[in-house]
């Protein structure tokens, strides 16, 4: 496979991937969305989903105070119930990494940082690398980079590939999540190609979206990405994680993603190590549903902290 890495070879490889029929993929995703997950299965799924959340704040208005509050929530999502698992990570801009790292010291919650001129990715590679290195130096365990969608859509796959490898190198020990921004790639064929491109360039995770572009994560897009990581592992023995992000707000949504993982990539991906849900408001809905299952009574937003 390595011999295909020249620009022409890479293009030929990506274009040679089996196509994706949009209607068929959407139909499959919609059918899996009808799975009925209730009672004990629902309770397990909610806890699993909580443990997979990358609790995210990515606003220009973010402050240290806001990030600290988010970190507290990440480590103890429901202060009233110690049995609630912690989330997987908090996800912040690179300049907030040190705040987050300090806030989460002594917990298992990881700090993830977006980097590489997030969300547009429109900056010189050098700037992207500086951004990445700064986040890693500040203690980020995970880097969420964006790909150059312009280059991808222009067919300059090798530029995208080289940027990812460069960022991967800058990451050092940190895990690299590659954001495809599928809402801008538009077609599922592109999603599959970008997935393979990112994996071959060294991505540890492939991630749907920045959350700044609509549509963000969708079930069909995630389905195609899950098929890609499944096929990639079959071809290379290397497992890559998947992270849908943006637009996942309800417990029902989250469980649908878990069903998708379960029946597409398989149970090997059903852990925070291999699957994440990038979200902010989702967490409270999961907590509310969790309490409903435990008490039998519907809860309300006033009973859960905003952050």
């Amino acid at each position, binding site marked *: 496979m390595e011999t295909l890495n020249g620009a022409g070879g890479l293009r030929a490889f990506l274009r040679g991937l089996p196509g994706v*029929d949009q*209607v*068929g993929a959407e*139909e*499959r995703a919609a059918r899996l969305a009808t*799975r*009925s997950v*209730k009672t004990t299965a629902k309770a397990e799924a909610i806890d699993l989903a909580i443990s997979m959340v990358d609790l995210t704040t990515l606003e220009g208005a973010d402050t240290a105070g806001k990030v600290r509050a988010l970190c507290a929530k990440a480590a103890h999502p429901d202060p009233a119930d110690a049995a609630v698992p912690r989330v997987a990570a908090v996800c912040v801009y690179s300049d907030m990494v040190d705040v987050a790292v300090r806030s989460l010291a002594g917990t298992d919650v990881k700090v993830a940082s977006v980097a590489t001129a997030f969300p547009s990715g429109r900056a010189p590679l050098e700037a992207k690398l500086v951004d990445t290195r700064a986040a890693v130096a500040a203690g980020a365990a995970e880097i969420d980079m964006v790909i150059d969608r312009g280059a991808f859509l222009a067919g300059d796959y090798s530029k995208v590939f080289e940027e990812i490898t460069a960022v991967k190198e800058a990451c050092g020990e940190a895990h690299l999540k590659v954001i495809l921004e599928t809402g801008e790639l538009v077609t599922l064929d592109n999603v599959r190609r970008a997935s393979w491109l990112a994996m071959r360039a060294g991505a540890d995770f492939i991630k749907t979206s920045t959350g700044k572009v609509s549509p963000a994560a969708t079930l069909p897009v995630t389905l195609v990405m899950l098929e890609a990581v499944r096929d990639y592992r079959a071809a290379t023995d290397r497992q890559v994680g998947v992270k849908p992000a943006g637009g996942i707000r309800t417990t029902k949504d989250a469980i649908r993603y878990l069903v998708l993982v379960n*029946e597409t990539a398989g*149970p090997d991906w059903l852990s925070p190590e291999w699957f994440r849900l990038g979200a902010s408001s989702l967490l409270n809905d999961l907590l509310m549903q969790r309490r409903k299952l435990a008490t039998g009574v519907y809860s309300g937003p006033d009973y859960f902290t905003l952050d």
Partner: protein
Amino acid sequence: MVFEYAPAPESRAIVDIRGSYGLFIDGEFADGHGEPFKSVNPADESVLADIACADESDVDRAVAAARKAYEKVWGPMPGRERAKYLYRIARLVQERARELAVLESIDNGKPIRESRDVDVPLVAAWFFYYAGWADKLPYAGFGPDPKPVGVAGQVIPWNFPLLMLAWKIAPALACGNTVVLKPAETTPLTALLFADICRQAELPPGVVNIVTGAGETGRALVAHDGIDKVAFTGSTEVGRQIARVLAGTDKKLTLELGGKAANIVYEDAALDQAVEGIVNGIFFNQGHVCCAGSRLLVQESVAEEVMERLKARMATLRVGDPLDKNTDVGAINSAAQLAKIRELSAAGEAEGATAWSPPCELPAQGFWFAPTVFTGVAQSHRIAREEIFGPVLSVLTFRTPDEAVTKANNTPYGLSAGIWTEKGSQILWTAQRLRAGVVWANTFNKFDPASPFGGYKESGFGREGGRHGLEGYLNV
């Protein structure tokens, strides 16, 4: 981790199954003069109800009621009035959708997901669609004032009991005919619930009559002098017998019979969707589908990859309780059908093909057959030629498009076929050459009231659905 879905059974409480059911003749439920029989839940072999059996005298009364309704009420009624009755029925089906779906799954064994998401919505859609035709027949292309045929005798199978009823009754009534319909003996319950819907719709008595019974009842109906048209869906063998019975008469006939569809996967197919289409093609409704994609023709260059993906996908199929909302494959409809599937499957192994099924635990009670795929199948094997009507797929390979088409057409049947390729011109080239009435390209097992359905060759004649579906019920 292992993500087990807890049981998610749909409640049976919505359905009230009575201890016994009569015939529906002239708007009333009546006893039959044949020996009553039992309808059984194929998922656990429990008896659901005693069903009246119509003998010749009962068929006689039903036909007489239909004749009277045709001459006095339904035939003379303006199309726009007939339309409104059909719209009413469509709405009632929607209102009672859950009840119909649950009852269908109990009586037939099909997964509630399918009866709820496919069968019942299509039933409502069928009545809506043909309701609209009732007052527009002069525009259908059969002349300025097309007339109904008269009384239609309709015999339907057990695989889609309510949907096949809709396929038969909706166009018949829209065109101004009245009907005597015989549901299959293993699945009469939703037809009898439909009779109740006719009453709720205040459909004039005699327009729809339902006579339950087995083959004898069906024979009495199709041979009855008082009917003008026979519509039958079922096996090719019975279709042949009916065609012989009708020889030399003026009765109009449409037949929708067996199939052995080829599902052709070219090397450039969108493989994940193709695999999904293969699964949907053969395991939908336990493979109890006349148009099932029971012969997979896969190009040799991708055969191995397709088989790997297919097996992985089959391993995720959930077989079991039809009423569980997460069930993908339900129960085989009857002991007799299970025996037939087992017999052909054994023949496949005896002839040298290799069977594979995913590990799956089948319930101890009821009629069950694990999803099965046969590889190493030759054209000459029985499992490549005979309709199994079960969750059994035969895989054959081909090298060139010509070979694919030749193999696909090498069957006395010609109901449906599938094509999977990302190359548009190859789709059209293949579709043009396939001798089959329905060709699904990059999809499979799709049905719609606006879309004509029916076969070439021994898969029958006439079309159901769309404008074409009117022809069988008009005197043209």
